[in-house]
């Protein structure tokens, strides 16, 4: 009698929680936690009928939000282009939980258990760097969609990326700040996050170089993952009175930094990196987000877009639920990563890792959604263009395109 009551109680808990909130629950960026078991077949390498491509993203943890959006872009691309070399392409999705330790396990599983021919991912440079060695040793080519830290592809001929790099991004932001009259800056970075620390450093270097003033970075603050209270840091920054604040951080912490800065009476412009291009930041920070400046990879309203881009924008907006939906830049990059890999498999004519890798390296002028692709000897996409957006009237608005001629 007691045992069955326990069961009933447990089921009641589950049903109660679910039923109360199912009505309000949004399906945006659909969490695919269930999918991480999809590669469960014990079969070794590829069936003759199916080509498996691994998707290595954080679906939970600090970067779960961005990772889910990137995964959705990849899934959409798989629906649009579902075959290559006459075989069906199957996505094997694993969740690296935004954790470097978990990342190595996830990648090993993709390679050894699921037998994927290529890997796409990850959102979050830290986990990508952690997985790099395993990928290199296994000889499976990987395409990063939005990981911007240089160390992801450095010294690893099997890792490519579809986005620009942090040194470039840092310089772009520093340029923009100085062009708008800033002489001093404050930088806030997240301790232990390669992306945040890396981008922050590149910005600092570029800013100091461009102003010629060693002391132009008046405050350099560090916070821990999962921190929510930035008042102490921001009070110190307020006392240092910078002309601009640069805070490359995750989307979980960005709205908190913005809101708390404004609540403390800090009025200078706040800038972020590519991770900040996410609607959730405007949702959470509300009117305080007005005027925030970010750099990003993709502008959905670009009138000079390629046909591929136009088709993508139209199709993906429908998938997101209508014209009002805003396409996350990382979804566009995920889409691009997928179609580039597919194109390489097509050109290589085989599913051999080294062959696909060589085909990827030879990509020249392939038209994706975020631009034309060509990879340099490091495996980085030669992108000399960054898009600067600002938040205006509760939306991300295109501000300018920055081209750097190397």
């Amino acid at each position: 009698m007691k045992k069955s009551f326990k069961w009933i109680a447990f089921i009641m808990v589950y049903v109660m929680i679910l039923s109360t909130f199912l009505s309000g629950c949004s399906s945006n960026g659909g969490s695919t936690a269930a999918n991480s078991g999809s590669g469960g077949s014990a079969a070794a390498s590829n069936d003759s009928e199916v080509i498996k491509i691994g998707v290595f993203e954080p679906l939970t943890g600090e970067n779960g939000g961005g990772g889910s959006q990137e995964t959705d872009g990849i899934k959409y691309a798989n629906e649009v282009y579902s075959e290559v070399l006459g075989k069906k392409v199957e996505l094997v999705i694993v969740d690296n939980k935004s954790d470097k330790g978990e990342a190595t396990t996830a990648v090993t599983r993709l390679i050894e258990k699921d037998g994927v021919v290529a890997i796409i991912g990850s959102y979050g440079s830290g986990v990508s760097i952690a997985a790099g060695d395993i990928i290199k040793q296994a000889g499976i080519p990987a395409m990063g969609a939005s990981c911007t830290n240089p160390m992801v592809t450095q010294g690893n001929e099997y890792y490519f990326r579809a986005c620009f790099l942090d040194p470039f991004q840092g310089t772009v932001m520093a340029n923009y700040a100085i062009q708008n009259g800033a002489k001093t800056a404050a930088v806030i970075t997240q301790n232990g996050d390669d992306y945040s620390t890396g981008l922050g450093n590149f910005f600092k270097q570029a800013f100091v170089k461009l102003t010629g003033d060693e002391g132009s970075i008046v405050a350099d603050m560090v916070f821990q993952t999962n921190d929510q209270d930035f008042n102490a840091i921001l009070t110190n920054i307020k006392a240092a009175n910078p002309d601009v604040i640069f805070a490359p951080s995750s989307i979980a912490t960005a709205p908190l930094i913005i809101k708390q800065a404004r609540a403390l009476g800090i009025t200078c412009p706040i800038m972020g990196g590519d991770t900040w291009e996410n609607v959730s930041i405007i949702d959470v920070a509300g009117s305080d987000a007005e005027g925030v400046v970010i750099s990003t990879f993709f502008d959905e309203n670009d009138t000079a877009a390629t046909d591929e881009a136009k088709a993508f924008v139209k199709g993906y907006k429908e998938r997101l639920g209508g014209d009002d939906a805003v396409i996350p830049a990382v979804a566009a990059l995920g889409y691009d990563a997928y179609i580039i890999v597919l194109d390489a498999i097509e050109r290589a004519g085989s599913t051999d890792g080294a062959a696909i890798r060589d085909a990827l390296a030879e990509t020249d002028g392939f038209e994706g959604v975020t631009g034309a692709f060509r990879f340099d000897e490091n495996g980085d996409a030669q992108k000399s263009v960054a898009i600067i957006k600002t938040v205006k009237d509760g939306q991300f608005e295109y501000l300018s395109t920055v081209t750097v001629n190397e």
Partner: protein
Amino acid sequence: MSFDTFLQHLTNGISLGSLFALIAIGYTMVYGILRLINFAHGDIVMMSSYFMIYFMSAMPWYAAILLVIISTVLLGVLIERVAYKPLREASRMSIMISAIGVSYLLENLANYIFTGVPKGYPDMPVLTKGLHIGSLSVQSASIVIPIITILILVLLINLINHTKTGMAMRAVAKDYETASLMGIQINRVIAVTFAIGSLLAAIGSIFWGARYPSVYPLMGVMPGLKCFIAAVLGGIGSIPGAVLGGFLLGMGETMLVAFFPTLTGYRDAFAFIVLIIILLVKPTGILGEKTTDKV
């Protein structure tokens, strides 16, 4: 640093401290009665925040707040019934592990249902209005929270010391078995304890949401840990101790960053170092009782 900046830091510290205090009381109450550290408390705060988001989108704020409090209390009591009651006869380790299990369950349930993308806590203008007093910028919440915390502290001390339910709670805390032999309804007392703890979690989540409006499944982890440390610092089992511990921890963290800006990265380490020191030097906490073993 200038006096103005120091005052601003002080305000930040008191505001953060009172938030910690509010949630620490929940930990300390449950420990006092059940000798259980309810690790799921931080996640109950997180669930409460999600409840608020969904209720606020469907009804005006006064109805929403009421419903949030009721549903959080129900959640707390349900967790107790399902995960802790069956283990009352088992070793203390088992029930603590069960608490950790509930914590993970709530986090992952929230991640599955609400996805990992942060959502915005509904704005409550009465709490988030920015006030500028001289050169100080404070949210009205920063003034409201410490006052409400002290009020709750006074109310709770009254409840514990001057009501029958409070007496029952003290009896169960003293000696669980004898109390049940004396005719005290143990289940009712424990349910009331969890209800009060969850009520405080709900109120805590409302204030937390006013100060830090980003709601995501893992938002309860760090606050939960830090408030647990605050409860231990002040003396686990003692409600005034929890409030004291909360204020001390909040002020300490803020002042650390204020006076040593280069150590901002070590802010969390401060809390954990405090925990280790207090456990080494005075394990029962600042206001904790000396437990004498009766022969």
